[in-house]
């Protein structure tokens, strides 16, 4: 528990109605989407940069951990208070401050839900492309902390490509401003890019300047069924090689198709081993032509069937197939280990083959789907942890999956971040000097390690106090 004088100062800063220390409120802020729980000592809902600055200054003086939290929907533990402390919830700071149609930028507070911004800018004929699956509830602050991606990243890039400037409360309570309203800016270090994807360990974003695009006039959605997974993977490479960049190039393997089949009435050929969902966008006049090109390129790779949506409803029906995968997985086994490895696009076929081998060797179902167009594959290892020895098997499977991805020139995480869930694997990818450089940045900005401690860095390196408060309440640690 926090000392009385600290609680009093917190209440003075945010107002007593925005400070909670009761068990009920600590429990409702003890989790994210990782199935782990760790109780914070206090929960505050600040309303301004100034309040956040004062809270962080206090926390730094008193050496109390501070954790920024948006929607709390992360998959890697980024908002888990593993060392207790103050959870700082940013949902009150949810104003869209400005949409500048002359300069194509938006200025927002961190608590704005991504989908809401998209809706607002699209009314004005503008476009904010990053579209994580959680866009209808995750916040821009959270998207920035994790550098969120999504299906459209194949063509449009990830969150970092749209952040022009930030206002940030640093771990010592200072307010800094990075970047600005201009497309070009080379003054000093690019702290904006450093902060995007820093998982709330380097500061708390309180104001964001985002770049917008004109909204594409039209889009066309296609579904292509393949006779082999290799065929689908090769089609992906062929499409990319032909210098067409679709908006999305989503992929589902046989196991994913089977899951959807069980949950919904999906009329695909029975011999179908993989599906690609491809969308193109741009000028209306070019859509039919682009769609035809994509289908022509795919055809030599064992295409069983193609569907092209002519209406919004048909397009929605195709996307529904893709969206049905995740919810249908639990029918396989109760526990899901959802990883988001990424490999160079040309290595997608090799990665998929390796995943099949791993699945067979360890006799665990692995369902793969995701953003094949940018090599980002969602690997879902579905197990029942109540089976004896399964914990160990899962660790071995994940270890092998990550090693293979890194071996192919890829990465252990494309868009979910490291948090606590992937911290044990970070050294597979980053060598000691690289990690040391990152830790030096962390120490320079956060000398007392109060800002979201216990994340990203492996424990021995971070030299944190062992997280004693890290006690999963009910469900075993998996993500």
């Amino acid at each position, binding site marked *: 528990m926090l000392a009385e004088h600290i609680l009093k100062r917190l209440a003075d800063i945010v107002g007593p109605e925005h400070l909670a220390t*009761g*068990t*009920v*409120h600590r*429990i*409702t*802020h*003890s*989790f*994210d*989407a*990782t*199935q782990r*729980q760790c109780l914070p000592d206090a929960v505050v*809902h600040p309303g301004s940069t100034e309040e956040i600055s004062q809270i962080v200054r206090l926390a730094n003086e008193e050496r109390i951990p501070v954790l920024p939290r948006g*929607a*709390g*929907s992360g998959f890697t533990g980024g908002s888990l208070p593993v060392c207790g402390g103050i959870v700082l*919830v940013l*949902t*009150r700071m*949810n104003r869209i401050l400005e949409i500048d149609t002359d300069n194509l930028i938006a200025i927002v507070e961190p*608590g704005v*839900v991504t*989908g809401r911004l998209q809706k607002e800018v699209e009314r004005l004929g503008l476009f904010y492309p990053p579209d994580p699956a*959680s866009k*209808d*509830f*995750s916040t821009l602050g959270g998207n920035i902390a994790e550098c969120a991606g999504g299906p459209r990243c194949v063509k449009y890039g990830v969150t970092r490509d749209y952040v022009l400037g930030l206002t940030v409360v640093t771990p010592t309570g200072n307010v800094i401003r990075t970047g600005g309203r201009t497309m070009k800016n080379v003054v000093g270090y690019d702290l904006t890019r450093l902060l995007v994807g820093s998982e709330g360990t380097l500061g708390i974003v309180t104001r964001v300047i985002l770049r917008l695009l004109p909204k594409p006039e039209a889009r066309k959605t296609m579904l292509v069924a393949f006779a082999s997974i290799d065929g689908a993977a090769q089609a992906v490479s062929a499409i990319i090689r032909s210098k067409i960049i679709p908006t999305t190039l989503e992929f589902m393997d046989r196991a994913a198709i089977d899951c959807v089949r069980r949950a919904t009435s999906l009329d695909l050929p029975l011999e179908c081993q993989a599906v690609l969902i491809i969308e193109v966008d741009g000028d209306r006049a070019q859509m039919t032509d682009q769609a035809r090109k994509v289908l022509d390129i795919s055809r030599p790779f064992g295409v069983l069937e193609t569907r092209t949506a002519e209406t919004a409803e048909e397009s929605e029906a195709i996307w529904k197939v893709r969206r049905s995968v*995740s*919810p249908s997985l*639990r029918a396989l086994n109760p526990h*899901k280990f959802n990883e988001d490895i990424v490999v160079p696009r040309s290595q997608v076929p090799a990665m998929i083959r390796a995943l099949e081998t791993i699945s067979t060797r360890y006799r665990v179902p692995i369902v793969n789907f995701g953003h094949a167009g940018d090599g980002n594959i969602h690997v879902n290892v579905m197990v029942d942890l109540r089976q004896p020895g399964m914990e160990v098997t899962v660790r071995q499977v994940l270890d092998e999956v990550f090693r293979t991805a890194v071996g192919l020139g890829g990465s252990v995480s494309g868009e979910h971040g490291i948090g606590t869930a992937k911290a044990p694997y970070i050294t597979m990818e980053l060598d000691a000097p690289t990690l040391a450089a990152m830790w030096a940045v962390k120490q320079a900005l956060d000398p007392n390690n109060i800002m979201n401690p216990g994340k990203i860095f492996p424990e021995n390196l971070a030299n944190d106090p062992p997280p004693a408060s890290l006690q999963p*309440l*009910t*469900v075993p640690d998996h993500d």
Partner: protein
Amino acid sequence: MTEGKTLAEFQDEIDQCARCGSCQAHCPVYLETGREGSVARGKIVLAAAVLSGEVELDQRLREEIDLCLLCGSCAAQCPNKVPTNTIVAALRQRIAATHGLSALGKGVAALTGSKPLLGTLVKSADLLAPLLFKKIPATSGLRLRFGPAALKNRSLPPLPEHNLFAQVPEFLQGDPAQPVVGVFAGCALTYLYPHVGEILARLPHRLGCSVYVPRSQGCCGMPARSSGNGPLVASLAEANINAFAGRELDCILTACASCRGMMADYSAATGHTPAAHLVDLHVFLRRQGLGEQLAALPKWPHRFRVTYHDPCHLRTAGITREPRALLAALPQADLVEMEDASLCCGLGGTFAAVHPDLSRAIGDRKLAGLQASGATIIASGCPGCILQLQDIIDRAGLAVKAVHTLELIHQALTEAPS
């Protein structure tokens, strides 16, 4: 009759919650509060904590558990189909069983548990004048006569002198070749909007059906469930199931989304189901070909613009197309969609009585879409929604009238084009 599953029996469903947070996009309360305790995921975590003994059923917990409209939007959209609304009802039941009913819950019990009382109160029309209504203390059961209608300064419809049962016979004989249908009217269509209740009974008869409106039906139990009164829900369910048990019926018709939602849950709440299928009247009329009949009528030269509000308890049951199809076929009106048509109106059982300001803030989110639609009439399939919509419309000073879809259908069938 049993009181349905207890909280402990929901352990498996509670464990199904992956804490993904997608409920945040659909919870009307969370959209307003932005607080984790308001949303389904937070309540599921609390339910788990109650079961494991980590948290007491204290005042703070009760406050969080009170913050739920039982609209079911979260459950309908949940990737893992966690029935949070049912779990919240079980939590409230546990709280009420341990600590007793709240003052409001006692009012609900006194009122909905006693049909004669409800009838008598409605007859004393002067009590219902809004001016006098304001003078009734907030804790009085009188304020609860229509459950959610009992709010300070709320716009109320002028109260009718006679209730539905005085206006329609218990049985209307139709064509023997046509279905025999039961009618469950519910409190609002019996006492508050009996003219709509009457259309509910007479329209199927007009289409040839025999219609049975049993007098022994009572409150559906939604306000009782909302206040955690499990025994009362069980006894009301039993009374209503028995009311329809005497006859061979093809289906039981409802025109109140909330009643339909509650009765569809009788099985989960009590372990028993009504003898015949529950069918929302829009679905029934569409099936009976009324859409085509309406579309064949000559269009009125001066048509008004109508828009539709989705009641949560129809939307979450997948009933969204049928009311729109009927409205689109009306000769006297042009249907326009409004943005946020599917957003909750904010009434939510006894929610509006416990949290009047929050309830209105939720309802006010409908205003922008309604105004932009240019509609002068907003139709819906739930008297609770209609009551709430008219209230938020009046407070915003808009010239829009909230009506039941059935009233417009009745108008099309009975009035001359103008």
